């Protein structure tokens, strides 16, 4: 071999080698170089696989020699992280659900100028409930409160009015409360009336002339009120009508809420956008 190269000068050998290197670097396409490297890996796959196996076995052995105390600590940390991750995932799902509902609620015609404030129901005693949002979120006395359920957004209904507010909570007077008295319209009637709570899970509308034909199941809407409610929203339905004993020419109408107030866990307070 040495004799073979003896006739070639060192300079020529060096230049040839350098030229080969430059050709590989700048002339040979990278795909061709990649194919050459792959061919090497394919031809020698057996010894290379053995080498990888030995390295993997060594890595596995090294993993097994973790200090038991470290292992315990890592396991504990992993379990904590798993719990935290599960909780965060659950919170994320809840937040996504609320955002989806609120987006639909806001998109409803007539509610574009209202800012919905979602709240959780803390407690419900008789015809009053405590909710989780207060003054800090912009909740104020007199604002309408709607249900917030998984059902279609068109099925949301007015359940009451904010009656008292603290920094972080508020009290909602439900439509069935004895002190509740909200202006409403009955479907098919042009004149506005008042819905007065009875305290027994029902409410009444009085002083409706008997010349109006009323059917059971007729919808009752909370009246639109500038700055509080831009569009009428259903609140109840007529459950029963009978002659008013005190005013024989008037109807005594009993209504029942269209939402199941006892099982509500989420509500939304409607705050006018202009309100601070």
């Amino acid at each position, binding site marked *: *071999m*040495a004799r073979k*190269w*003896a006739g*070639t000068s*060192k300079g020529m*050998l*060096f230049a040839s*080698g*350098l030229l*080969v*290197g*430059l*050709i*590989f*670097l*700048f002339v*040979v396409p*990278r*795909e061709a*170089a*990649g194919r*050459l*490297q792959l061919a*090497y890996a394919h031809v*020698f796959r057996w*010894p*290379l696989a*053995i*080498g*990888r196996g*030995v*390295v993997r076995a*060594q890595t596995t052995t090294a993993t097994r020699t973790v200090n038991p105390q470290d292992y315990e600590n890592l396991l504990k940390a992993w379990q904590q992280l798993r719990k935290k991750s599960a909780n965060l995932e659950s919170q994320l799902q809840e937040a996504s659900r609320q955002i989806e509902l609120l987006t639909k609620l806001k998109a409803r015609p007539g509610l574009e100028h209202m800012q919905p404030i979602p709240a959780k129901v803390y407690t419900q005693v008789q015809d009053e409930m405590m909710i989780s949002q207060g003054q800090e979120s912009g909740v104020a006395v007199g604002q309408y409160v709607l249900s917030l359920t998984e059902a279609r957004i068109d099925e949301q209904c007015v359940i009451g009015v904010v009656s008292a507010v603290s920094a972080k909570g508020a009290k909602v007077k439900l439509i069935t409360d004895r002190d509740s008295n909200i202006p409403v319209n009955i479907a098919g009637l042009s004149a506005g009336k008042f819905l007065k709570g009875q305290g027994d899970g029902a409410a009444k509308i009085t002083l409706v002339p008997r010349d109006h034909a009323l059917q059971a199941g007729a919808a009752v809407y909370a009246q639109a009120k500038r700055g509080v409610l831009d569009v009428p929203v259903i609140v109840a339905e007529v459950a029963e009508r009978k002659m008013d004993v005190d005013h024989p020419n008037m109807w005594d109408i009993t209504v029942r809420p269209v939402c199941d107030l006892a099982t509500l866990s989420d509500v939304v307070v409607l705050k006018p956008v202009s309100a601070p």
Partner: protein
Amino acid sequence: MRWFRFAVLVLVASLLQTGLVSALAILRADFKPDLLLILLVFFALRSNSTDAIIASFALGFAADLSNPIAGRLMGPRIISFGLFGTLLSDLNSTISPRRVIYQTITIFLMGCLTAGLSYLLTFLRTGDVPANLAAGCLWQPLYSALLGPLLFLPIGWGMHMYGKGRRRYPHGALVRR
């Protein structure tokens, strides 16, 4: 120079470098010795200059084939190994590192220089800076430098190159081993 033995040695070193040498990695996966760099210094120091040039380019080719700096790229190590291997071989006629400490320093410097030039050529060709720059230019040469002199003895036995470099007669002529 026994070229068949050389070819087998280079092949075995390439295969070990691709697989088994990873088992010697410390701290990080890329802190491992470079067997082909050790062979480069060995042949540059112990072969005559013609053989050293051929061996340097051949080792560079093997390095590019088995452990490329960037995927689908060949050439940087052919050039850097060939260039610095030839340079070391030429310098060996004036500075012959016979002591282990000098060999260690030589391997380290050769590792730094070849890696530096290889990364520069890779950058010129691809425009990418390899992520393991510090490991390739510093830690791998250091590890190779510590391990290299220990491997010189078995490689010398295998290649029947026992000497510690070319010696000079008093009047300056070189002794061929």
